[in-house]
């Protein structure tokens, strides 16, 4: 009996089921239109020519709290300072953990000293599902040509402990650095960790 079996044909079945909608590094990032806390509308195509970072968040999630101990703010300041567009995305459905009013979102930005380009809402979860975003935090880097270059975790140690930030490999920061330098991040796909997004 042959023990080793490959399943290449599987993808035929997957294609027919429409499960190939998952985003893929190296291909065009799914377009979206979202509204920020000020009521301004943003589309991915508006940012053509700029590198874009997407950060999924839920301010009550302990894993988000871990990185908002300073790490996330530092990354935001550093990258937006280099002309990167940083969108903090809230996909929590109304009534679920992490869902906030625009005013509350602005207040959180101020109180946490965070520095994204904008905090945007995705109440229906459409954008999150298009990106197959699963956790908070969950990070994406899109290059100037609109090509998805990185998706996955913020760093390499899945834990809720602040102490681990300095011990971990900063996977997202490394990827963003590579994209800014016009290079391909390696790794470009990593494990996202954290709380589930409250779709």
């Amino acid at each position, binding site marked *: 009996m042959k023990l080793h*079996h490959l399943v290449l044909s599987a993808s035929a079945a997957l294609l027919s089921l429409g499960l190939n909608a998952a985003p893929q590094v190296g291909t065009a990032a799914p377009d979206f239109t979202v509204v920020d806390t000020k009521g301004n509308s943003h589309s991915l195509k508006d940012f053509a020519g700029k590198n874009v970072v997407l950060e999924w968040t839920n301010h009550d999630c302990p894993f988000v709290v871990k990185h908002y101990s300073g790490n996330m703010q530092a990354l935001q300041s550093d990258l937006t300072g280099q002309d990167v567009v940083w969108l903090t995305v809230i996909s929590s459905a109304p009534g679920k953990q992490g869902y906030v009013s625009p005013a509350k979102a602005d207040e959180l930005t101020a109180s946490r000293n965070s520095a994204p380009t904008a905090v945007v809402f995705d109440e229906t979860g459409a954008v999150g599902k298009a990106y197959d975003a699963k956790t908070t935090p969950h990070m994406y880097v899109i290059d100037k040509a609109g090509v998805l270059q990185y*998706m996955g975790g913020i760093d390499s140690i899945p*834990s809720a*402990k602040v102490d681990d930030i300095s011990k971990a490999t900063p996977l997202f920061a490394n990827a963003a650095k590579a994209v800014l330098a016009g290079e391909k991040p390696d*790794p470009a796909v990593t494990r996202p960790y954290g709380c589930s997004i409250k779709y």
Partner: protein
Amino acid sequence: MRSVIFLLFYCLMLSSGHAATTGWQTAKHLKAELVSEYQQVTPGQTVRLALHFVPDEHWHTYWQNPGDSGLATSLSWRLPEGVTAGNIQWPTPHAIAIPPLVNYGFEGNTVLLSDLHIAADYASDTIDIQLQADWLVCEEICIPAEAQFRLMLPVGSNAILADEQSALFRQAQQQRPQPLNISGQFDTSGGAFSAVIDWQQTDITAFFVAASELVDHAAKQQISQQGTQLLLQQPLNTYFSGVEDQIELVLISADTAYSVQLTKGGQLAGNEKAAVEILVTQGQQSSTALWLILLMAAAGGLILNLMPCVFPILSLKALSIAANSTQQAQQKRDALFYSAGVALSFVALALLLITLRAAGAAIGWGFQLQSPYMVALLVYLLFALGLSLSGVVQFGLGLMNTGGALTAVKGGKGSFFTGVLAVVVASPCTAPFMGSALGYAVTQSAPVALLVFAALGLGMALPFLLLAFVPGFARLLPKPGAWMDTLKQVLAYPLYLSAVWLLWVYGRQVGVDAQALLLIGLVCVAAACWLWGRKQLAQVGRVGAGFALLLVLLALVLPVLAPKQAVPQTQSNDTQHWQPWSAATLKQLREQGKPVLVNMTADWCITCLVNERMALNTDSSKAALALYDVTYLKGDWTLRDSAITEYLRLYQRDGVPLYVLYWPGQPPQVLPQILTPDTLPQTLARLSSQP
């Protein structure tokens, strides 16, 4: 930050004497204790320790693969020298759905077991066990926590069980998946996690892979049993970026869970490396309603009556039934017994096929034509039936009797065996025309397969049932008369032609020398029939009859004596635009990134021959193959070939034809079974224009 991370401080239990538990520590939504199976331990012993979680209702902690979010519980031990702790022995996880995500974890009473090994030369009289446990407990929201536990166990010359804890350890053991010592392999190509396990177990309902970010946890799992192997498949995780060479897999059945170690494909030596593709599409196929399949099978059976090998005999049988309209009761009984004979013969064939496959034989539908000896017997049978129609001989089964001959009462037995004979005579026709449909049936569960074959038989018997039970039908037929005898003699010729076709198949299988021997056998059959016919007319005596039997025996022996000749299947000449198929050639071509067309065919498969003539060997198809630099591989299933059978099964086929087009970077395309002249050029044009 501090408000969400709960730091729980250890409590020393030394004051209350030596206990086997640390007692409960309470965190938000969960209480925990560390428990030893023994209250006193001894050097050289392995002791089980249990971290016992009791979360609030609906709250859960996570398995080693937490799924789409969450975090596995982690343990960090501080132990004296000479004492070591093993990894967590995880209980069987549950899938916890938080749409669109899925997590793997535990609700309710949860026990994480770890082994504690005490060196044989451990000298101290206590063991100071310190554990830091980190966990994430979630309902919809999540709360991480950590706690320290400290347990002092006395060391003595004998080990003493902590009786009050034995129920907990029994429960923990029951919650563990049962380890299986069987081999399994997995692969991650083609966008899916696929596993093949050498295990016959039909009631597996779900599986859990222990590696994180390997499968798309929320996607549908496909589980099917094929032969002696269990096949599993689930799409890959979007965040899949690599996997260890060994992973643990937990299989769930109705009442038990099992754990298996899987090895990554390609890690084994030798021919195990040979990559074969499997396709588990059962989940999709089952969407075709059973009644529709049965209806189609019945329709197929009805059509069988029109096949050249069946039509002559059965049409005469039908006429004879219709003619006998005065004896309705007997008519009905005959029709019923005949139908039973047909249906049961088909079911018996299906049973034979299923049994052979369960025993590991790599055969598919059409197997009855893959043995040259079987083909030889069918040639004899068709020829002898033809001779009978020509009036050389009368057979006693009532099959050939027309008109008044039916008044000779045959009884149910005769009709039953007429049905059996009809199925045997029809069998060469089922393979070429219905191979794929029946092949599909055989890949289904045994009861479904048997039902499909029974429906086929009923379909075949339907005209007789209608004739016997619906008087209107019988009236549609012309009145019996002398013309029937003429018709009978005319209908002998389709039978002779069917025999010639099988003779040709036989010749392709074993060569022209053996074919000549078979022709001699046919002469013997002719002579035997002639002698037997003369005996029936009382023109020869016993000697003649004995001689006829001898001739039949000789005819039967001749194909056995036939020289086995390697058939020059692969003769290549300049005009041949295909190469012989082999799994290795296909693999090699695909690794080189070349487009490949695979055609699985057999000489006895009429559909295959028509497709080749009409759609594959045409100038436009040849030009398309050349234009796109497609290598055309042809596999010949005329004789039994287990490699081809296995390949067919990858595509859920059990018979030929099968056409698969491999385009680099694309999933394999299975072409329809009936090809039009445009199929190949159009498919190639479409594939090449895709990004």
